[in-house]
């Protein structure tokens, strides 16, 4: 069975489960879903907002997926995203450069910031075998408190309390023609960053020796070592790239979807990235599609809320259930895999005997 069918099945299960919840709580699921979809896609502005909502999710999903392909569980996308976004914001607030130079610089610094945040756990893993789940989570909090301290101390806005100063227009991914195209939506250049990142990652994973190495390490560390691949270097490199992509999510979020960085909050997109990655079967295109789906859910939920009597908590539960089921595509996969392996193993025995006896 092919991956996309699996994911679609998972989504279908999720929608059914969500519908059951709506029914149980006395709401009309068809109406609910109709408004959910309308809320995300009814007019160009809403479509734009859906794309904008999906943008950081594409990137965090990609980040998690990339690490996963190398056998690493990067749970720290939130911290990497926050720190990458912070670095980009700091550049945007500090340097007065023409837009054509400033934006690429911010994107680059955002990437590097996120990457550095992930390299530390990567290094600890490679050198001292510290489990990356633990160290990336801890790095999340280091990022949280770093931003918490540095932003008010150096980048505080006069009229904003829990946020940095607003970025000047030239330092934002916001692009007027794009907003106009989507009739005032806050969709921005971040979406293109996401698309480009998807394409680049797909290329790296599938077409390059680097991707070959990283995947080999992910699938079987011992075999990679045997083949002469520098396993430790691959781990660090993989975390670097994964963190960098999460950093780009921060750039998209804080200098695109928002115009300043907030303190006291770890971006939820970092964690949603895990679910996005799972639903997307850890492939770049899959991640892109599943992030759009998540974006639609998050974006359309409020409208469903507003148009029906479904209260926000139930709406949240519905979304959570859909995500829960969607993320269990891996369960579906396991189930299918189990059945398949058994069948293949058995068939193989049969075939082998055939072959040997021939």
């Amino acid at each position, binding site marked *: 069975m092919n991956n996309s069918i699996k994911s679609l099945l998972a989504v279908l299960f999720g929608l059914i489960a969500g519908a059951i919840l709506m029914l149980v709580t006395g709401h009309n699921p068809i109406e609910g879903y109709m408004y959910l979809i309308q809320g995300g896609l009814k007019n160009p502005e809403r479509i734009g907002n859906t794309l904008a909502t999906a943008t950081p999710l594409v990137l965090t999903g990609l980040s998690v997926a990339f690490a996963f392909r190398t056998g690493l569980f990067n749970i720290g996308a939130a911290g990497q995203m926050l720190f990458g976004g912070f670095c980009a914001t700091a550049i945007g607030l500090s340097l007065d450069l023409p837009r054509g130079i400033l934006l690429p610089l911010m994107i680059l610094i955002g990437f590097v910031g996120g990457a550095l945040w992930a390299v530390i756990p990567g290094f600890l893993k490679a050198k001292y075998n510290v489990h990356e789940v633990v160290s990336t989570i801890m790095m999340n909090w280091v990022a949280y408190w770093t931003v918490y301290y540095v932003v008010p101390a150096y980048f505080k806005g006069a009229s904003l309390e829990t946020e940095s100063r607003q970025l000047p227009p030239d330092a934002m991914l916001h692009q007027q023609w794009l907003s106009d195209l989507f009739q005032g939506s806050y969709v921005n250049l971040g979406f293109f960053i996401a698309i480009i990142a998807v394409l680049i990652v797909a290329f790296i994973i599938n077409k390059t020796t680097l991707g*070959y190495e990283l995947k*080999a390490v992910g699938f079987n560390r011992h*075999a990679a*070592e045997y083949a002469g691949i520098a396993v430790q270097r691959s781990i660090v490199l993989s975390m670097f790239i994964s963190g960098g992509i999460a950093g780009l999510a921060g750039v998209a979020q804080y200098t695109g979807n928002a115009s300043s960085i907030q303190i006291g909050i770890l971006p939820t997109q970092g964690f949603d990235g895990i679910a996005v990655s799972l639903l997307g079967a850890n492939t770049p295109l899959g991640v892109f599609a599943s992030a759009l789906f998540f974006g639609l859910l998050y974006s359309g939920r409020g409208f469903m809320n507003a148009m029906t009597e479904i209260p926000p908590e139930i709406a949240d539960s519905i979304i959570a259930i859909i995500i829960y089921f969607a993320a269990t595509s891996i369960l579906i996969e396991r189930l299918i895999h189990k059945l398949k392996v*058994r069948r293949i193993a*058995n068939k193989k025995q049969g075939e082998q*005997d055939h072959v040997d006896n021939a």
Partner: protein
Amino acid sequence: MDYVVEMVGIRKEFPGIVANDDITIRLKKGEIHALLGENGAGKSTLMSILFGMYQPDRGMIKVNGREVRISNPNVANRLGIGMVHQHFKLVEPFTVTENIILGSETRKYFFGLDIRTAAKRVEQLSQRYGLNVDPYAKIENISVGMQQRVEILKMLYRDAEVLIFDEPTAVLTPQEINDLQEIMRKLVSEGKSIILITHKLKEIKAVADRCTVIRRGKTIGTVDVAETSREEMAEMMVGRSVSFTVDKTEGHPGDVVLEIESLNVKNSKKVNALKSFSLNVNAGEILGIAGVDGNGQTELVEAITGLRPIESGTVVLKGKKLNGLSIRQRNNSGIAHIPEDRQKRGLVLDYTLEENLILEVYNQPPYSKRGLLRSEAISQHADHIIQSFDVRSGTGGSSIVRSMSGGNQQKAIIGREVERDPDLLIAVQPTRGLDVGSIEYIHKRLVEQRDKGKAVLLISLELDEVLNLSDRIAVINNGELVGIVKSSETNERELGLMMAGYRKEEAAHE
């Protein structure tokens, strides 16, 4: 006829396959009955059914003439059926007695265990069956052969009448094998009955009374071992005639390719695994390393290939010192390595066959250029190996390796390593777990490599394989080189003694 165990018309189906199809095996009281079959023929399934781990779909099991339903291993135990597993199930820091009573401790004493009574009984059993086990010895301090006897004692302690031995000789030296066979004879003479699961014909010949051969889940027949030749049984097992000797001419050794000089290596537990080990391997020869598992073979290979750091000593390949070089540098210097565990080291199971066949050379032209993989060259390479090494898979190069059979996985590795045209080919357990057909083929390829003037270092736990293939044999014991002999001038007995640590001269006098 009184049979202790009868399994009649047993059928067991797993989703998509029939593992056992109408198998019948009858065990007479006081006999050693061999169950012979290739890997995957259905031996394990059958014995798991007898031991209560699976339920048969059809068929009948009788114990002592009474039909029984064995729903779990405890029932099997109560019926007097015991199994000596291939991998021992012992607690290392416990004593022999503690291990034996584990799970059937004397319950009437609410506090503490009545070790002494138990130990006495262990002692008695040990003497009666000639097992010679010290009830108070700790498992971690006794040899593998002794540990196996503890497993046997465990069954006897639980009053087992029928003992199933699952591939019992895999971990033993030839001498230990002899001892085991002695014990088995003693057991049957005392009235026990034994089922011996194996694929080694020699052992069957040595010890079994009758032999049931199964192939592809079906009973091929039950024969009287004394009246049946090895060749006949082999033919029943694989379904065609098989040759047992490796065709090879006299070797023409050339220059030294690999020089190992007083090598010291630590194992994963930080204990010295190789002690001042020195060895030369020449071009145009197969040098076999004989030894009981765990005597430093793994560490030797890993030290040569770079997977494990060297404490002291040198490894020189064609005049080039390898110490300090990375694995890749060593690979590129002309070492190819068929690893011991093909699924752990040798293959990325979730990669396609194509991808696996470039595992060490993916970053070299023509397979990649400026960091980009070139799929055309990669598939050509794969097709070439698939053809010349007869690697069979579902969809050729694009098959996921996980879905391939063990024999074909191994052929793929051998093809990959041989195609790299190495000066030194290190083959570790190259035929482990493979069927007779694949073994023949792989042996031929190794000899071919030798005849091309390459050096081959063969490490195997199968003494027959080492004897048949090698030109010279180095025997390793406890990390030390016991001696080097010419395979044409030695025999299994001498090697066995050397494997146990006796020097060549001593071995000759034994």
